């Protein structure tokens, strides 16, 4: 009895319940006689759009195009962010050289680069990946730097009094001590990658989920628009969850729990 109660009040059941409630309210609204399905398509229409596009192959094509851009941009942006962030956060000379540039660029939203990127590189695959890389880099690097600056002094002192060189302290103490911040940087970068991807594809892309959104608007396919929104949400959610489980495994030593 108690066990059942625990399961029913658990995270999964309550989470499913709240999503179910939202779907129910949506169904009630869309089934009212005065509802215009062209603006607010009923759930069966959205599901139908999913299967139509799946069968036609357009959905998978768009999904792969988008995921490819996300992974490539995310990988390039975060890798550079970790390398540069670690160096900037640890070595004062590098900090004084590079930090002003990062600070100057940081407040600029990545989407502001779209015009200049199009002028320089055209509407190419490269441009989109570049934009996502920039977005990932900017949000991630800030976290990495913060992580390196928050390395407790006592760990640094302990390592140096055991004979560690400055570089050894960097490698064996500072980087591992900063991993919680670095992983948070990765997760924020992933969210930024999705935001930028959709924006970039809305404006300039011959394929991808953002392109399908745009197409849906142009031909007034509201059910397709709704379907793509749900797909994007689901993808971002799954990726974030995957990341969290990686984080949990990497951070097994850490005291902080969710």
């Amino acid at each position, binding site marked *: 009895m108690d066990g059942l109660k625990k399961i029913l009040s658990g995270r999964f059941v309550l989470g499913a319940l709240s999503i179910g409630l939202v779907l129910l309210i949506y169904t009630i609204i869309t089934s009212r006689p005065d509802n215009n399905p062209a603006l607010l398509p009923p759930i069966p229409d959205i599901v139908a759009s999913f299967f139509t596009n799946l069968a036609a192959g357009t959905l998978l094509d768009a999904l792969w195009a988008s995921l490819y851009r996300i992974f490539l941009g995310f990988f390039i942006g975060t890798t550079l962010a970790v390398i540069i962030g670690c160096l900037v956060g640890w070595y004062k000379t590098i900090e004084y050289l590079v930090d002003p540039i990062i600070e100057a660029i940081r407040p600029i939203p990545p989407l502001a680069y779209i015009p200049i990127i199009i002028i320089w590189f055209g509407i190419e695959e490269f441009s989109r990946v570049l934009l996502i890389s920039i977005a990932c880099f900017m949000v991630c690097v800030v976290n990495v730097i913060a992580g390196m600056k928050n390395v407790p002094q006592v760990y640094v002192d*302990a390592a140096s009094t*055991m004979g560690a060189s400055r570089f050894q302290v960097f490698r064996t103490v500072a980087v591992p001590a900063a991993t919680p911040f670095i992983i948070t940087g990765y997760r924020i970068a992933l969210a930024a990658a999705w935001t930028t991807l959709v924006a970039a594809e809305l404006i300039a892309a011959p394929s991808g989920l953002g392109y399908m959104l745009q197409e849906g608007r142009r031909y007034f396919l509201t059910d397709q628009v709704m379907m793509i929104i749900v797909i994007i949400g689901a993808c971002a959610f799954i990726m974030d969850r995957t990341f969290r489980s990686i984080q949990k495994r990497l951070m097994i030593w850490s005291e902080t729990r969710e």
Partner: protein
Amino acid sequence: MSEIVVDKLTHTFGKGGLEALTVLENIDLKFEDGSFTSIVGTSGCGKSTLLKMMAGLFDPSDGQMTLDGELIKGTDRRRGMVFQQDAVFPWMTVAKNISYGPRLRGASVTEQREVEAKWTEMVGLKGFEDRWPRELSGGMRKRVDIGRVYANDPDVLLMDEPFGALDAQTKERMQSDLLEAWRQSKKTVIFVTHDLEEAIYLSDKIIVMSARPGRVHHIEEVTLPRPRTDEMRLTDEFIQIKRRLWAMLEH
């Protein structure tokens, strides 16, 4: 041989500035090879600053320190330090923490295993090799800390109120275990504390410092026989020393 000599050492924070603060003034001290010396004094007497300078964590503004005639400048493995704060690396298991020093110098896996086995045993953590520090109590983490410094085999052991954060009983256990480790290794130990009983129980010699600016006020030779036992804490001689030192810190 590992003898530290402090020669006319003065340290001023923010030297030359308006808010210059002299924390140590004209310190002359000698720490003999294999001796156990404590430094006591009220807070602000610069005892921790002195210890950190011996470790090489920063340089004095005037005067110098030598280890066996060699000028102390910067940190190196010859002068190991145990800190008041928890300095155990949380991202390494107990064993990996212990063998950190040898690993820095490229010790082989076999050598690392030997060091880990020897020192986890010595500090009483056998069976905890694969635990994460977060799974240990404060006292056990301190043991890891001490084991790690010992495993690194320094000539001099600098300890900055290492047992300050522990409860009374754990503290007494740690003190007698520390004496046992010291008896076996005969390293020069310099131990900073504000706990007089701890200083008397552990040391050959106690340096009493006065505050603002920090100066050497008195040097007490502790002639209690070794090995020290817990019963000694209640002897007349012990209590007399404590009373004398206490009066000095009160002044």
